[in-house]
C-alpha cells in the first residue's frame, strides 16, 4: 500500500489542478458545515492520503448506487476519489471474479485488519439461498467483512434501511446492514441512488479527520441530510400561494407550480437534492417536473403511492368506511329498538301498578 500513488498524484495524472481540488475541498467543507478555513488543510491531508483499503460489498441491489457515482458524463473529482479508494474489492466493478476476487477480499481484510472501510450497497437477505456471492451468503460475508472493519458506510437506501428488496411483502426477509452489525460505527448515505457528493463527502471527511461525520437519528450525515427538501425547494412560493399542478401536463405544470398534489414527498424528506442538485449541479427531479419520491427515507416504497400526496391518509379503501357506517347504523338502530322496548315495558309495568293501586 505504501508504494501506491497518493490521491494528489492520481489527481495530477488525471489533469486536475490544485485549484480544482481546492474548490472541491471548499465545497465539501461547506456542505459538511466545516469552517471554510479548513479547506487547504483538508486538501493537503487528502492529497497526501494513500489508497485506503475499502471493501465494497454489493448485496441485494440494482447497481444504481454504483452507477450514479461512476457513470457521470465527465469524470468528476467525486468519481475519481471513488476510483482511488475502491480498488480492493468491488464485486460488480472489479475485473477478477470467483475465487480470485474472494481471495483479494480476504487478503485485504487480513492485511488491513481494523483499518479498512466497508462500503455496502444492497440489503441483506435473511432467508437462506436468496443471494450468495461465490457460494457465500450475503449475511455471512457481511459478518466476516465487518468483523475487522474500522467503520461501515451504507451506500443507498437498500443497505441503509432495506430499500426496495425490503418492500412488502419482503420475500427475501431483507434487512438493513445496521440490523446485523451493531458493534461498529455506521454511517448511512441513503438515496435511490444517493448523491455522489454525499458518498465522497463522507469518505473525504473520514480520510481528513479520521472519523465519521455527525449524523441524525437515522444515521445520516447531517451535512447532507440535515435539511428538508421542501424547505429548500425553489417551487416553495407556489406551495405557499396555493398554486399546484394538478396533472403533469396542465397549465400549472407548465408554469412550474408546486408538485405537492402530484405526490411530492419532499415535505417529509431530508436530502441535499435541492441545493446540490444532480449531474454536476444541473438539475434535480423537482426541477425537471417530477415530485420527490422520498428515496432517502426508510420504507419509502411502502409509504403510499408515488403519485398520492403526503396528506392522503393511507386509508386504502372507502368501502371499509361504508361498512363501518352500516355497522354503526345497525348498532344505533338496535340500541333504539332496545330502548323503545324498555320504555314500553316500563310503561306497561307502570300501568299495571297504577291499576293495582286503584
Amino acid at each position, binding site marked *: 500500500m505504501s508504494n501506491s500513488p497518493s490521491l494528489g498524484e492520481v489527481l495530477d495524472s488525471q489533469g486536475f489542478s490544485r485549484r480544482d481540488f481546492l474548490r472541491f475541498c471548499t465545497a465539501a467543507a461547506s456542505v459538511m458545515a466545516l469552517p471554510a478555513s479548513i479547506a487547504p488543510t483538508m486538501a493537503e491531508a487528502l492529497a497526501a492520503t494513500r489508497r485506503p483499503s475499502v471493501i465494497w460489498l454489493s448485496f441485494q441491489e440494482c447497481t444504481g448506487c454504483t452507477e450514479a457515482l461512476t457513470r457521470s458524463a465527465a469524470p468528476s473529482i467525486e468519481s475519481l476519489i471513488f476510483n482511488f479508494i475502491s480498488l480492493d474489492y468491488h464485486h460488480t466493478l472489479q475485473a477478477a471474479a470467483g475465487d480470485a476476487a474472494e481471495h483479494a477480499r480476504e487478503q485485504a481484510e487480513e492485511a488491513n485488519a481494523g483499518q479498512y472501510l466497508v462500503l455496502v450497497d444492497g440489503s441483506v437477505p435473511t432467508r437462506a439461498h436468496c443471494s450468495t456471492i461465490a457460494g457465500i451468503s450475503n449475511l455471512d460475508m457481511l459478518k466476516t467483512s465487518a468483523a475487522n472493519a474500522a467503520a461501515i458506510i451504507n451506500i443507498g437506501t437498500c443497505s441503509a434501511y432495506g430499500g426496495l428488496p425490503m418492500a412488502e411483502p419482503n420475500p427475501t426477509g431483507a434487512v438493513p446492514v445496521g440490523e446485523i452489525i451493531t458493534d461498529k460505527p455506521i454511517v448511512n448515505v441513503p438515496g435511490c441512488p444517493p448523491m455522489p457528493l454525499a458518498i465522497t463527502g463522507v469518505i473525504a471527511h473520514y480520510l481528513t479527520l479520521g472519523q465519521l461525520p455527525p449524523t441524525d437519528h437515522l444515521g445520516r450525515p447531517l451535512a447532507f441530510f440535515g435539511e*428538508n427538501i*421542501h*424547505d429548500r425547494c425553489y417551487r416553495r412560493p407556489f*406551495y*405557499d*400561494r*396555493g398554486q*399546484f399542478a394538478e396533472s403533469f401536463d396542465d397549465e400549472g405544470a407548465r408554469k412550474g407550480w408546486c408538485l*405537492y*398534489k402530484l405526490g411530492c414527498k419532499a*415535505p*417529509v424528506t431530508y436530502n441535499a437534492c435541492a441545493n446540490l442538485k444532480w449531474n454536476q449541479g444541473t438539475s434535480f427531479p423537482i426541477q425537471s417536473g417530477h415530485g420527490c419520491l422520498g428515496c432517502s427515507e*426508510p*420504507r419509502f416504497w411502502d*409509504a*403510499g403511492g408515488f403519485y*398520492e*400526496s*403526503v*396528506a*392522503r*391518509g*393511507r*386509508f386504502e379503501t*372507502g368501502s*371499509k*368506511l361504508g361498512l*363501518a*357506517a352500516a*355497522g*354503526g*347504523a345497525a*348498532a*344505533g*338502530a338496535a*340500541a*333504539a*329498538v332496545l*330502548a*323503545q322496548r324498555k*320504555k314500553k315495558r316500563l310503561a306497561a309495568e307502570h300501568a299495571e301498578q297504577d291499576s293495582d293501586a286503584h
Partner: protein
Amino acid sequence: MSLLEFARGPAIHWSLIILTVGILWRLLGVLALTRGADLSRPRDAFGNFKGYRTVFSRSWPAGEFTTATMFQTSVAYVFHLSTLIVVFGVTPHIEFITGLTGWAWPGLPNAVGVGFGVMALGSLLAMILRRLSKPAVYCSNTGDFITWVLVALPLLTGLLAFGHLGARYETLLALHILSVCALFIWFPFSKLMHAFWFVFSRAQSGIVYAHKGVRI
C-alpha cells in the same frame, strides 16, 4: 414503523372507523327513539311547521340577551367559522378528504389558512378563559375540558407543523394527525355531537313551542 407511518396508517384508519360507527350509532340510537305524538290540537294550524324556524332563529340570542351574551356569541362564531375554514380550506386537508371521498375543491393560500388557524386557536383560548372564570354559568364537567383539549391540540399541532416549530416536520405532522385521531375517537361520545344535534334539538324545541303557541 415510524410515528408518521403509524399516524397515517392504523391510527387514522381506526379512528375514522370509530368516528363513523360512533356518529351513526348515536344519531340513529337517539333519532329512532321517537317521542310519542302530542295529540292536543296545535294552537296554530302551521305551528309545527313554523317550529323549524328555531333551527335558524336560535343562531343568535334573543334580543333581551344580546348584550349580556355578546362576547361569547361572537367569539364562538369566530371560532366555529375559522375552524370550518381551516378544516375545509387548507390544501393538505382537502387532499386528505379527496383521498377518502374523491371530492376536491380549490384551497386557500397558506398565509390565509394560518391566519384563520391562529384566530380559531385564539378564540378557543378566550372561550376557555371565560369558562374558567365563570364556573357558575357553565357548570363544566371533566368531559368539557377533555373536549376543549382535544379540539385545541389539532389546531396547535397544525400551526406548529406548518411553521416547522419545535420539532421536525414529520414528527409535528404525525402529532397533528394523531391529535385529529384522538378528536375523531372522542367526537361521537362527547358534546361535540352538537355538530349534528343542534339541528334536531333546536327543531324539537321549536316544534314543541310552536305547538303550544309560544312566540319563537
